[in-house]
């Protein structure tokens, strides 16, 4: 079984996410009227395989597997998948899986591109407790932002259906919009705290000569994200911004994060030497 590498396990995980996505389309077509465990089980199977893939890679490297774009992306997806499984245990929150599965599947397929996972040298480029803390908290923050965006998307759908008097709003087994907003706010707040810790840890890391911290594209990108989320949270919590605008902001911020994560990583001298 030596030929069966961690990438094969990740491929199987992505397949589970794909099946979950297909089932999610079915649930969506049925108006989210059935609150069953099938999607949860598919996603849980995916997360288990995903965990095995990451464990195998981590044991090979003897460190947290966040050394290249493939590993960073899989870590982000793992954090998102795991958080989704935990939050889905709340009453009426199983539909989080239906909204998370498409994100896990599409980004998972992207992560599987071979060019994102070049072979490692004899020693991992990225090791040490502080580096692991920086990478793990930053990627978990992105996972929390991802799940917040998923809850925000659920809010926006339910809000639209209620506003325009669609029967689907009544028939679906979704949580109340007030609860969805609360979950979105808490997850965004958790992501923000994790990102703050991640950035602070990153700032403490030794840098190569002639590479100032604040001129690195990834650092600028992360600082920009931090500011965006700070603005979203402050406007909602202290200035009474409407829930619809807040949830739209959380959704767009995560779409921006997903679309630019790979590019900034690629052009970052600190993260992609």
């Amino acid at each position, binding site marked *: 079984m030596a030929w069966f590498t961690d990438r094969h396990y990740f491929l199987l995980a992505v397949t589970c996410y794909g099946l979950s996505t297909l089932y999610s389309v079915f649930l969506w077509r049925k108006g989210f009227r059935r609150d069953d465990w099938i999607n949860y089980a598919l996603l849980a199977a995916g997360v288990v395989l995903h965990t095995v893939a990451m464990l195998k890679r981590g044991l090979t490297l003897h460190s947290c597997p966040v050394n290249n774009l493939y590993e960073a992306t899989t870590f982000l997806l793992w954090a998102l998948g795991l958080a989704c499984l935990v939050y889905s245990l709340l009453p009426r929150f199983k539909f989080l899986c239906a909204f998370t599965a498409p994100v896990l599947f599409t980004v998972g397929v992207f992560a599987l591109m071979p060019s994102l996972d070049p072979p490692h040298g004899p020693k991992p480029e990225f090791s040490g407790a502080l580096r692991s803390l920086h990478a793990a908290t930053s990627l978990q923050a992105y996972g929390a932002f991802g799940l917040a965006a998923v809850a925000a998307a659920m809010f926006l759908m339910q809000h639209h259906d209620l506003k325009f008097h669609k029967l689907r709003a009544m028939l679906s087994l979704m949580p109340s919009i007030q609860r969805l907003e609360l979950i979105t706010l808490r997850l965004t707040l958790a992501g923000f705290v994790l990102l703050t810790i991640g950035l602070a840890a990153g700032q403490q890391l030794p840098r190569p000569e002639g590479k100032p911290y604040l001129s690195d594209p990834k650092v600028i990108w992360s600082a920009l994200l931090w500011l965006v989320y700070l603005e979203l949270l402050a406007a909602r919590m202290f200035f009474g911004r409407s*829930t619809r605008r807040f949830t739209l902001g959380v959704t767009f911020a995560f779409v921006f994060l997903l679309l630019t994560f790979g590019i900034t990583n690629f052009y970052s001298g600190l993260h992609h030497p």
Partner: protein
Amino acid sequence: MAILHRVEPALALRACLSTFNLQPSTLISVVVIGLSHRTSPVELRERFAFADEKIPGALKALRDSGIATEAAILSTCNRVEIYAATSLPPAAAFAELKKFLIAHHAFDGALDDELYVFDEPQSLHHLFKVASGLDSMVIGETEIFGQLKQAYELAFSHQHTGARLNKAFQRAFNVAKHIRTATNIQRGSVSVMSAAVELAEKIFSSLAEHEVLVIGAGETSEKTARALRSRGVKKITVTNRSPERAAALAAELGGRAVPFAQWLDEFEQIDIAISSTAAPHHILDRATLEPLMKRRKNRPLLLIDIAVPRDIDPAVNALDNVYLYNVDDLQSIADDYLSLRREEAARCEKIIAEKVAALLQANKVAAPDEA
């Protein structure tokens, strides 16, 4: 418009019976005679209604006359039915039961299509349908289940039921429970009031923490406020042009009354407003509500406008965090639910046909000499 594939109940039942090679027993059979909202107006139903205290006497008279060996009477505002186990041939039993009904109520008018009669297996099918709420005015309602249970317990406690009716009624209750859990026949709100409550639960996580303002102490707003109260709402404020009426309703609902001139001041605290005044124009418009929403820090606000002409300008629905529903919107939700229940009824009929066949099979096994 979806095409409904309805199962013809009689055909489904016949198919089930032939599958199991069953025929109804010939010695003692369960028969039904009655009149309901489907066949007769309320004026006639009330003429034949049995008062609770008179039912034991009527059942005794029925058994003493030799028409029935066992009997139970179901008398509600929507139906009056006699369920009887009899050894008489069906035609004779129906004629005697009709005579009994007419004599007992001293009815001197004509009765034709208003009365319906069922012999086995249709009588059992009808009993199961009634227990499951499929024959009710609001399809799938559960009140009839309790009424049927009460009717059976009354007959049972006075020893007017025996093996046949006991088994039939017990099975009917089991079938009703099974249908309730296995199908969506009871899903959703089929009245304006319950639709409003369900809507509130889609917006707010817990109704107990939210305050309701009733503007105009009309009957529908009172009923809606009561429905919300039954689902956990604790704080209710009432306002009305007549302060006495507001105070009276507030006392009934366990809330407080505020003068009509000050109801807008309440908007900072409340989360649900039910409006049903007789005002000829809008009493709440977008320009008035917009600054109030800012003061509320954009907390969600559910506005239920059940007044005709409408009290609330439809333009307020465009405001963020405002959800406005008028009486037509709520009625349309109730109607949609009702059509979903009708679709579900086809599934229920199929289940009932199978359960009737199973009961007849059990009767056949228990008394092979009767078959």
